[in-house]
């Protein structure tokens, strides 16, 4: 009988949902958002680059060659004669007789053969093991390839973007992690203890939120000693960003704590005789953990933009360290729009990352309360 089939199916679905934990429900709801899912894949790829930028680089990002400045985007072709045989079109240069500038053009007849997992410059996996394997290398070590063109010093933009990705994405993540910790601890304290503590923390948040951010950054960043190493600057910038960035999250956590304190199931736990610690850890934190993750993933792109803006203004991460902001700042030095528009590609990467984070964050936010409706 056909009418019983859907009913039985319904029962199976019902059983599966019945024993699904919170995180499973969140995941089921999240994966309904196609765009968020695609964005999550994009972010996963970006974080793969963060783990080992050298592996994805085709050459040393610092290698300069003044004779190979401003080479345009070469691109990559995967097939040759219908077979998988990756190659890059060759570039031919001619000096302009009047401006004396090199003018590059793609030579469609010549191919530079490249291969996957070939050998190139040496690098260290997680700073531990030495290797020289890369995702893509030119078969002829003397023949440099510029997938995304080169800059004014003849450095390979593709490889520089890989390293910039590592810096910028890490700043974003670490800054948000720090501000999440600050936000959860201070916001939680504010919400749970209440009274004077709450007032003090709330006034602090109001103070931090009312000061315009750009001048604070300027002041703090200017206060960084000029002789610090890029690594030190990097951490200092991260800390500065999170010291200012925790306030929104702190507010949110406090609000959730206050709302949760009034929830019946929290009262039930209190009446059951649960200790404060148990109520917080077992009942309250799990309830807003998914919200916090969603909020945090929406905060990362803000941090990335902040880092990029600071570095673009020359106040954040400074060369020789590479970040997206540094790359964009260098692009600003010349009339890149006219002469070498590909130097604005890091901007596209920033947009891609920010969009992906926002889409994932939105998806998570929608999914984070699977019990509504």
């Amino acid at each position, binding site marked *: 009988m056909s009418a019983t089939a859907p009913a039985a199916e319904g029962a199976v679905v*019902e059983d599966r*949902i*019945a*024993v*699904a*934990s*919170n995180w499973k*429900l969140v995941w089921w709801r999240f994966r309904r958002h196609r765009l968020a899912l695609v964005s999550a894949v994009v972010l996963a790829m970006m974080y793969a680059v963060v783990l080992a930028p050298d592996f994805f680089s085709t050459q040393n990002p610092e290698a300069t060659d003044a004779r190979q400045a401003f080479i345009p985007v070469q691109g990559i072709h995967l097939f040759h004669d219908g077979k998988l045989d990756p190659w890059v079109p060759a570039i031919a240069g001619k000096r302009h007789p009047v401006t004396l500038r090199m003018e590059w053009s793609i030579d469609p007849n010549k191919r530079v053969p490249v291969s996957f997992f070939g050998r190139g410059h040496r690098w260290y996996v997680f700073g531990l093991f030495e290797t020289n394997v890369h995702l893509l290398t030119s078969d002829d070590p003397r023949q440099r390839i510029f997938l995304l063109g080169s800059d004014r010093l003849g450095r390979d933009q593709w490889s520089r973007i890989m390293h910039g990705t590592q810096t910028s994405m890490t700043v974003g993540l670490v800054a948000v992690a720090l501000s999440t910790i600050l936000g959860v601890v201070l916001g939680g304290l504010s919400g749970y203890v209440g009274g004077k503590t709450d007032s003090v923390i709330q006034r602090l948040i109001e103070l931090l939120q009312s000061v315009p951010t750009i001048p604070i950054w300027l002041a703090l960043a200017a206060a960084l000693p000029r002789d610090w190493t890029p690594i030190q600057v990097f951490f200092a910038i991260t800390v500065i960003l999170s010291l200012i960035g925790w306030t929104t999250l702190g507010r949110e956590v406090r609000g959730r704590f206050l709302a949760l304190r009034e*929830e*019946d*199931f929290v*009262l*039930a*736990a*209190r*009446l*059951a*005789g*649960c*200790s404060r610690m*148990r109520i917080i850890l*077992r*009942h309250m934190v*799990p*309830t807003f953990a998914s919200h916090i993750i969603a909020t945090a993933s929406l905060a990362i792109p803000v941090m990335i933009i902040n880092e990029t803006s600071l570095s673009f203004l020359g106040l954040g991460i400074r060369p020789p360290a590479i970040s997206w902001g540094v790359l964009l700042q260098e692009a600003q030095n010349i009339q890149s729009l006219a002469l070498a528009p590909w130097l604005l590609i890091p901007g596209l990467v920033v947009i891609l990352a920010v969009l992906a984070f926002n889409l994932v964050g939105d998806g998570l936010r929608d999914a984070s309360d*699977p*019990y509504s409706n």
Partner: protein
Amino acid sequence: MSEVPLFDAPLLQVRGLQKFFPIAKGFMQRVTGHVRAVDGVDFTLNEGETLGLVGESGCGKTTASRCILRAIDPTGGQVLYRTRDGRVVDLASLPQRELAPFRAEIQMIFQDPFGSLNPRMTLLDNVGEPLLVGGMRSRSERTDRVAELLKLVGLRPEFMHRFPHAFSGGQRQRIGIARALSTNPRLVVADEPVSALDVSVQAQVLNLLLELQERLKLTFLFVAHDLSVVRHISDRVAVMYVGQLVEVAPTASLFSRPRHPYTAALMRAVPVPDPRVPPADGALRGEVPSPANPPSGCYFHPRCRFAQAKCATETPPLREVAPGHMTRCHFADELTLAGA
């Protein structure tokens, strides 16, 4: 704290219970007044009986019951509870620490079947939590006890690994009841346990409560706003209006002959489920006054059909007008009010 064993004393005796919430205004959060949510409530509750507490929204039913549970701290008054060994303790004045031994004995059933269970914990963890914090460390012991409790409230024990979202409102209410019963309580405070349920489910839960009371010798404080429900389940009924009790009486006596004009008006307002009974005319006019600013004299006088000059100035006391029938009206003896 009185230490004299009193075995014939009522299980619970509430005397002059008060709860005022401060009203804070302005930047400095200065206290400009108080919401007199519970304003001098007295009643007794005998072992094994059900006292129904009725009243309109905002009259202080929840606040009063939470004061008794010490979920909030009362502003004044006494909540005298007779312990298993016959001592009488004042729950209202005990510090939170010393309340711990009584937590297991006085439990609560909530109104909202959706908010009262932690959605992130399985039934086993939800129902078993009072057991766990009460010292039952062994998981298998808890599993057995939870299975027993689920059976008791009419649910299949296999359900214990499911999460609350898999259950309907009525089933969740049963789960909440199982949790309340997990520690073998003597007194159960049920705050509108059937108000959020459908008619057919409501009947099931009411039957379950009656059956459990019989079986486990429970004492109920049953808070509700539905007079028919309260009448059905209670031995005695207390009617509340703006933070005060206006009438306390055995159910039959209250419904056959209410002595307070408010009680009578409340009964008249309940629509009768029979189209042949014409709608009662003369619905109560006006609004319930704010407990932050109650009227002078008898709180009910601005809406009372029988109010006289005296009512606006003199506060009537809660007094006994018939055996076991207390009411707070100057003219209780002269008025003849229609019951249900």
